[in-house]
């Protein structure tokens, strides 16, 4: 049985429908990539799983429980942590306080605590007393990832962590993923940057206009198939 499932997941912003019945399965320990162009519905999918957008209870299942209608803070307490799009550090908190916020509610023993997050991203330890927003974009992204890890989540949702970062910085950040995987967390990475996502993922799902248009293992998907699923066959 999958650890996290979405079943017939739909989402609306007023009259506008952003998701049309999305079915996804994330197995324990698996890393899934969700790729798609601007406006494909990736963030909407992540926010629905995290509870920011309330859903029907059975549209999202986690560890055998219907969590679709649960509040975001309860979903986080259950073990799903989010690295939100745009990093979303708390500007009035220092780097270390931002990290501590990750463990505000869910305090479980596990591999991740301040020291191990600082081992993963040593630069953060040097800057721990600075305001989070004084850091470079890449370092802010490290704080956002570290903050989510602090709760020792069973599922880590990462929404476009490469957005707006230089390629060398993106490589640095993705270099942390093998370590995160080793600890047993299941991961969902949402990306427009297909290359990085394909490298870390066990499975890839391509989204277009609110639907999953292609799924498979990274090595079995051809460039053409991805291109079609990404932009539509006519493009």
């Amino acid at each position, binding site marked *: 049985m999958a650890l996290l499932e979405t079943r017939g997941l739909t989402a609306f912003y007023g009259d506008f429908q952003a998701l049309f019945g999305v079915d996804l399965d994330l197995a324990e320990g698996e890393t899934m990539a969700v790729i798609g162009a601007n406006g494909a519905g990736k963030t909407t999918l992540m926010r629905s799983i995290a*509870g920011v957008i309330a859903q029907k209870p059975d549209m999202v299942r986690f560890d055998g429980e219907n969590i679709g209608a649960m509040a*975001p803070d309860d979903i*986080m307490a259950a073990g799903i942590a*989010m690295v939100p799009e745009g990093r979303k550090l708390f500007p009035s908190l220092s780097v270390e306080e931002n990290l501590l916020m990750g463990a505000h509610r869910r305090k479980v023993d596990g591999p991740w605590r301040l020291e191990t997050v600082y081992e993963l991203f040593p630069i953060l330890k040097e800057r721990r007393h600075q305001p989070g927003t004084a850091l470079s974009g890449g370092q802010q992204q490290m704080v956002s990832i570290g903050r989510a890890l602090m709760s020792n989540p069973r599922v880590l949702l990462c929404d476009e962590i490469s957005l707006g970062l230089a390629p060398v910085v993106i490589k640095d950040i993705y270099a942390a993923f093998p370590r995160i995987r080793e600890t047993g967390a299941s991961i969902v990475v949402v990306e427009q940057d297909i290359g990085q996502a394909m490298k870390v993922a066990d499975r890839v799902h391509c989204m277009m206009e609110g639907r999953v248009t292609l799924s498979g293992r990274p090595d079995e998907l051809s460039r053409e198939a991805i291109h079609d699923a990404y932009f539509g066959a006519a493009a």
Partner: protein
Amino acid sequence: MIWVDTVLQGVLLGGLYALFALGLSLVFGIMRLVNLAHGDLIVLAAYLILMIVTLLGLGPFLAALIALPIMFALGWALQRVVLNRVLGTDILPPLLVTFGLSVVLQNALLEGFSADSRRIPAGWLETASLPIGPISVGVMPLLTFLSAIGVTLVLQFIFYRTSLGRAFRATSDDPVTASLMGVKPSSVFAQATGIAMVVVTIAALYLGTRANFDPTTGPARLIYAFEAVIIGGLGSLWGTLAGGIIIGVAQTGGAQINPEWQILAGHIAFLVVLLIRPRGLFPRAFD
């Protein structure tokens, strides 16, 4: 010498205004809510203390101690049952609701306690004074001022040294992201308003023992509180204390020149500070 005395009395008076203002500042800083019933809640707490003093025959300080948890619970419930429902991106609904609450409180107090003005008896403390050099300082004003500093220190500690304070600041920055960290904004807000009501009770103790009050005393206290918060810079606790002191000194200074100018001088000081520093003395770096 007379001016040293004037300034000192003004500083001490500022402590009272700071106590009026700190609860307002706390709530505004965390949830951007301007509570128009703040002054009436201070008056309500003063009546509560008065009732405990009269019914149980206790001293005002002990009575205030008993009133603290009651007012905390009231603030918590007020936030849970009423204010959380109207908080949102639109600032008008909370303003209207707290304005309505202000009217309701005044009328309820009028029903319950009549329009007669009252005072919490403080016995010998009312007139006690300490000589500091050639100047004599009232014990109650001094206690008020020390309480204001104490309250500021404690709130500052809660804000910057505890995990509750961290959640306060995070929620104030970005409630959605805070909820992704497991914070329930509605519960954080309820705790904040509870704490604000504790400060309100301390303010009520000094308001009620140092001057007469009646059910309509609240709105004027709200104005002083509001001015102190704005002078200090929205969301800054030390700024609020400074704001209270500035109004206090302006008032005693004005009164020294002409007794009729006391209130006016306070408001003028407020306007002058706003003209020079529209965002207050210690504004937050971001908002």
